[in-house]
């Protein structure tokens, strides 16, 4: 079964709706005159579930009329997703331990390969340009006390 856009939307709504109801239940609904902390999460969660079900029904109807359904995820989209998220994660892991410049280098170095088009020599130029601009804007311009290079493991 291909997961197409409408089905994905229904799944997102149902999952988060169910979570909101389940966790909200633990916070207590309260009474109508004194709604508790859990009331809004439960009400909104119920709304989400309703939307999820309606979306499912619509999807089913569309399928029966023989509409062509395209998968929500394209193979082409996987590469940017992994590289961009990996780059951010690397930045988060390195910023405290090695400082701003190494973290930026990792960010730029990894995210560069999200797009298949770039060349290696260009990467060096982008790295220098980004590091210069970021240090100029944040470190000198806004005076935020970053450790540019650190060593803390």
């Amino acid at each position, binding site marked *: 079964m291909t997961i197409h856009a409408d089905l994905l939307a229904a799944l*997102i709504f149902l999952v988060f709706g169910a979570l909101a109801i389940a966790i909200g239940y633990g916070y207590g609904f309260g009474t109508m005159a004194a*709604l508790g902390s859990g009331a809004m999460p439960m009400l909104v969660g119920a709304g989400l579930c309703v939307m999820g079900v309606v979306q499912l029904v619509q999807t089913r109807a569309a399928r029966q009329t023989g509409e062509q359904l395209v998968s929500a995820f394209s193979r082409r989209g996987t590469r*940017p997703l992994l590289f*961009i998220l990996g780059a951010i994660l690397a930045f988060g892991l390195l910023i405290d331990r090695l400082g701003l410049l190494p973290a930026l280098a990792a960010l*730029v170095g990894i995210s560069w390969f*999200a797009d298949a088009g770039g060349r290696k020599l260009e990467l060096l130029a*982008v790295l220098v340009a980004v590091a210069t601009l970021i240090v100029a804007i*944040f470190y000198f311009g806004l005076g935020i006390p970053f450790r540019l290079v650190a060593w803390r493991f």
Partner: protein
Amino acid sequence: MDLFSSLAMGLQVAVTPVNLLYCLMGVTLGTAIGVLPGVGPIITISLLLPLTFGLTPEASIIMLAGIFYGAAYGGSTTSILVNLPGEASSAVTCIDGHQMARQGRAGAALAVAALGSFFAGTVGTLMIALAGPPLAAIAMRFGAAEYAALVFVALLSTAAMTRGGVVKGIGVALLGMVFGTAGSDVSTGLFRFTFGIPELRDGVEFAVLAVGLFAVAEIIGNIGEPQGQAVSSSKIGRLWPTRDDFRRSWPAVLRGTGLGALLGVLPGAGLAMSSFTAYMVEKSASKEPERFGKGAVEGVAAPEAANNAASQTAFIPTLLLGVPGSPTMALMLGAFMIHGVQPGPRMMGDHPQLFWGLIVSMWIGNLLLVVLNLPLIGLWVRLLRVPYHWLYVFVLAFACVGVFTLSSSAFDIYSLVFFGVLGYLLKAAGCNPALFILGFILGPMFEENFRRAMTLSRGDPMVFLERPISLTLVLIGVAVLAATTTSFVRRGRAEATD
């Protein structure tokens, strides 16, 4: 205090060198991103949110507002010159604007767009100033039930009007509301959805959420998409419009301004809708509709005036009621709240400097746009040649460093990954992540007022239907929902987004 002394006070705030500088920065940045395809005002405002913590509220709001209306302006330049709308709101300008450019009259088209926008911006600004005091006086009488109903209508109609369908629209807005409830509950102090993580006790950080949903998810989605190659061969030509252009365009500008100013106030209508409607009205009002599509100057003047007027009057519900009518306005509202300013009927009384300073600075910003843009057109067009794989790396670096400066904690960076994934999934599901922001901002307002109204009515939900203002609002919401299911609005929306 009368209007003129208020405006005079606003002028004093707006013309301080610092605020002028930030206004200039805002409109310049706004124009630049209006030109660049793939980077819109929502992304830029969310990227700059972390940076505005250090500024005064006046300076940061003035700059962010400048980005917003500057982008509405910059998009028209590329529409006319290279047939590439930087923003959805200027897509319709392409039709006649680019035809004019091909006939060697790009200069006239750009000048008409600039002057029309300036006129519309002035009218829009004046409307905020005029509508402010009476509207705030009405809103002051709103009780909890009315506020809850108002938020409900704003959410429902925005969700219903957005591309992608009513079910998805409402669903995403509700999803945003769930995330809005995270953090300590204002009424009971209970920590909700914190999962034992101390960083979540104050709720989800708004700036992180915005950057993740927009900047990160947009980059992921845009890479690999074939980028339109912009080749501008047309000469700009004579800048000053002919007498005939003036004669034809001034009524179009007037109509466009009026229409845009009205549509801008409505929640969910937005800039794209206003410029599209203005174009259609102009075409059907014209005695020679066959000229449209072949370089009719009215076809440039009306939509440009309309989207600029709408971008000003969109501030009316945001500033005066505290209820943003569009996702970009929700971001602006978030920016106010970062500085501890709650927009709403009390804002004019509590923060007169900020309110009137912003209004006057919007007019100054519109003036700056005319002065700056016409001579600098060549520079803006050159921006189109920046390759996307340079742009996204810089945007990503800016996003990460900006988010890290919020609290110098790596947790914010990891949250960025989470919201990046969420944004990516929402986009893949055909949901508009911008509505998520609206739900996130409006959710807590709705909860607070809803719970208070229920307590005051001793648990009787009929309170929302018994009070006249609240009843009217609820009925409007239902009517909007019903209207969006009819074919007319659907068709109009489909054409507006194509």
